[in-house]
């Protein structure tokens, strides 16, 4: 996936690092720390004196919004703006000690839908910023269709989200728009209800913001709200996604940025992480998502498109309860890479027998390859068979193969001979058989 969400802390850090380039006329204190528990916060206070000197705000920094409505923003102990370091530390320890319920959608103040339940592990702590509602503004930018769009509003916080259509001014720019064109259009479209005294500053800030969004390869960037006090800016809340394909150009610009898993989403398994690591080291493509490890149909499919078609067909014919994984290998992986990928799958699928006592199915599928050498990749699969033949037999795996492309005759012949020699159940088909027909055959058995 090209667009990846980053933590609010990282978003602020990236802007702070390039502040003078994009916002030369504004100041930003960049007083913000990210910690995982109270002790870390106290440790951070040794280097950041403001943590002792100012009253604080603390909130989780885990990619989800609506933290206020979820009751997860600490800004008062007895009264708003009186949170001490000690209080913040104990609050963080309390919130991170057990799983928390978080709702992603609200109707007014009422949560809707099912909550996600997970541990809170990362918290952002910043100074409490007294300011008036009038000083709060909203700005965001993203790509819509072929254009970049900036959204600006004189009202920040929850107000803007609840009255989007009336309160937000949007300006759209083609990718080829020049800085002058952008600056001019933003200045001409400052929302009418921005205070007159702030209008010029608001426009300049938004121009810098949009320039940063473009040049730093953000896919999405939102500050809601930011506070303008003359030339002093505070970024109260930020959401950001990066286009991670630009990572190779942005090594210095982004610094050490992390792409965390969303709150409530299961962390990747060791196997998925191993495949991801292998994928990052090869020019070929290796992808694995484990959907339901106890399910009985496993797929090892070549090609991004074909893998989707197999998943569609299995869902249609058997239902998703039987589908254990989604994944693909493509782009001419080596024999060794294919062996590693196959062994990862075989290991996962042979850990348990089917709960209902049925056999398991392994679909070694693929369309007609353009350039991947079928015999070479199948050699990798055969080597994996050698190592896992006993386990595959133990859980009763039936193997269905369908593939075409360079050297496919040899590949199909080799895999059939190898499986027969090892006593594995196998059926092998070439391009004369419709690509997904082996799913039907497997299910009819």
């Amino acid at each position, binding site marked *: 996936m*090209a667009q990846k969400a980053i933590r609010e802390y990282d978003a602020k850090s990236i802007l702070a690092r390039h502040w003078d380039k994009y916002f030369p006329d504004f100041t930003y204190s960049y007083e913000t720390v990210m910690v995982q528990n109270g002790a870390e916060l106290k440790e951070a206070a040794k280097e950041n004196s403001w943590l002792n000197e100012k009253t604080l705000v603390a909130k989780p920094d885990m990619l989800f919004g609506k933290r206020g409505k979820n009751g997860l923003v600490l800004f008062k102990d007895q009264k708003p703006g009186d949170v001490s370091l000690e209080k913040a530390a104990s609050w963080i320890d309390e919130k991170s000690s057990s799983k928390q319920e978080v709702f992603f959608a609200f109707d007014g103040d009422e949560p809707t839908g099912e909550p996600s339940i997970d541990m809170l592990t990362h918290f952002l702590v910043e100074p409490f910023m007294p300011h008036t509602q009038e000083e709060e503004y909203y700005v965001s930018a993203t790509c819509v269709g072929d254009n970049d769009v900036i959204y600006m509003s004189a009202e920040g916080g929850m107000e803007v989200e609840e009255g989007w259509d009336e309160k937000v001014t949007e300006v759209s720019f083609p990718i080829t728009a020049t800085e002058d064109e952008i600056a001019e259009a933003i200045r001409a479209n400052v929302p009418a209800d921005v205070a007159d005294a702030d209008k010029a500053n608001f426009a300049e800030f938004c121009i810098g913001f949009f320039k940063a969004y473009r040049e730093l390869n953000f896919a999405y960037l939102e500050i809601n709200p930011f506070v303008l006090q003359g030339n002093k800016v505070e970024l109260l809340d930020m959401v950001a996604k990066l286009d991670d394909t630009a990572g190779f150009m942005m090594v210095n610009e982004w610094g050490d940025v992390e792409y965390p898993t969303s709150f409530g989403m299961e962390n990747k398994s060791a196997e998925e992480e191993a495949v991801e690591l292998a994928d990052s080291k090869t020019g070929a493509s290796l992808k694995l998502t484990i959907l339901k490890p106890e399910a009985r149909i496993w797929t090892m499919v070549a090609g991004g498109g074909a893998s989707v078609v197999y998943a569609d067909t299995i869902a249609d014919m058997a239902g998703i309860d039987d589908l254990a994984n989604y994944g693909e290998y493509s782009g001419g992986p080596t024999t060794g890479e294919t062996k590693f990928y196959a062994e990862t799958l075989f290991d996962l699928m042979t850990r348990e027998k089917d709960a209902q006592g049925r056999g398991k199915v392994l679909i070694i599928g693929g369309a*007609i390859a353009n350039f991947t050498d079928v015999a070479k990749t199948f050699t990798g699969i055969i080597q994996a068979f050698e190592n896992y033949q006993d386990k595959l037999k133990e859980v009763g795996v039936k193997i269905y193969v369908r593939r075409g492309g360079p050297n496919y005759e040899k590949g199909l012949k080799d895999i059939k001979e190898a499986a027969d020699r090892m006593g594995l159940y196998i059926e092998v088909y070439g391009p004369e058989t419709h690509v997904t027909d082996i799913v039907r055959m497997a299910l009819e058995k």
Partner: protein
Amino acid sequence: MDRLYTKETQAIFWNNNKTAIQRMLDYDYTIKREKPSVAAIVAPTSSNKFEKFFYGPDEVMIPLFKKTAEAKEAQPQADVLLNFASFRTAYEVTMEALEIGGFSSMMITAEGIPERLARKMNQTAREKNVTVIGPATVGAITPGAFKVANIGGTITNIVNSKLHRAGSCGLVTRSGGLFNELSNIISINADGIAEGVAIGGDRFVGSVFIDNLLRMEKNPDVKYMILLGEVGGTEEYKVIEAIKNGQITKPVIAWCIGTIAKHYDSGVQFGHAGASANGEMETAEYKNNAMKEAGINVPDSFNDLPAMINKVFTELNLAKIPEPEMNTVPASRRSKEFICTISDDRGEECTYAGFPISSVATPATGKGIGDVISLLWFKKQYPKWATEFIETVIKTVADHGPAVSGAHNAKVTARAGKSVVESLVTGLLTIGPRFGGAIDGAAEHFKYADDNNLSPKEFLSHMKKQGIPIPGIGHRIKSLKNPDLRVTGLMNFAAENFPATPLLDYARTVEALTTSKKENLILNVDGTIGILMVDMWRALGYEEDEINEFIASGTLNAFFIVGRSIGFIGHVLDEKRLAMPMYRHPMDDILYDVQQAEEI
């Protein structure tokens, strides 16, 4: 443009991807194209000038260039760029080619180009009316005319899937692997495809479904179209719109893969980077239903797609497409170890650059050794003044007496009882930077000074900084007052016969400065030859970098080698004739200064 490619289309292939290019040439041979579909290869880090490929059983050479601009200049008719650069450089390669201009379409294979760069590249191409296929694609094909790189896979598969001749389907897919699969399905259930494009799997691709379908609507070879979409994005709705407003009238069959995505939350990425639904409208199911409602032929599942194709095709009741004759690519081929581009002894009579020996050998032909050199060294027929100049040079350098190192060596070897060839070779082996090399050096340095518009004074100080005495300047005894008549002869010949002598004119201004410092710092015979050779090539229309290459490859030295061989052989024969005994150098002519070696 109603067709993406024709049988005349030629491409510039960026990156020397030999397997993919060979596949293109195998395809060309199979379908009997007249010219190879790859006209040039851009290989920025290669120092080779061409790459060999098989064309059927034979081999052809495709020129290699370091820069796209050079390739385009050499092959201006090649209007397709096949950009096989990595995701790091693909953007720059595309933008540069757009800047150069003259391309009608570009295919970009890299996956994962930064989105902002991909958007900019696609937009710029759109503004310049250039069709972009990709990024993240295996390409496109017009069966029977032109095939991009690896699309269609092996030649066997291509013939099996009837991709060697135009059928009647226009095919557009996102996926490259499924493109191949569909070609196969279409060949089984219909009569093959007329044009096919895999638009690419990245989120931002250049030409989208509608761009390609609108072109196919105009293409008379296309009778119906198949669209294979994917979960994610809203491009299919543009197709629905075009059908509703009558821009597309040919029958369309369509299916969006990724119906499974609805069962999982957005955390599972199915298929390509572009395949992620933002909202219900972008789900495969929703798009399939919408297309069905718009009158598109949508099957119930991917498994039912073949039957749907068969049904639509049968209803069209098209005339049967004749099967054209094909060439068969030999199963095994051997690459040739050597290449010869100057002479050919395979016919009745051996030829020098296409001219039978008898047509240049006898006096009646009016040809001299200068003509033979121009044919065998430069593969050109030089005009009379140039061949005569070459002969003048050879005659001028033929000998310079017995004392010069080469002649001395040859004589000593001959006296040791060695043969003509052995003695000659020992003489030739002394030719280099110090002996005879002034010709090369003079050409190189004077040309450098002239190319860089150095005044004589600047040139002198430049050479001084380099710590090199100016090659081609200075004579042991001759001066302006007592000129070297060989030099005078060469200069007079040039003045009478050369169209112009810009470098010599420049060298004379340098000589004026050097002789003002010291009488004997004249332009000597080596210098004059080197400089006039450059003037000769300039007058013959060679580019400056071609001349630089002649200098760098030692061509000037070669004139000296040929000429002086005549003199060396003379000295060797002289020794043989005189039956001179073994030579031993007199000991009193050697300074002995030998100390005992220290222990270390």
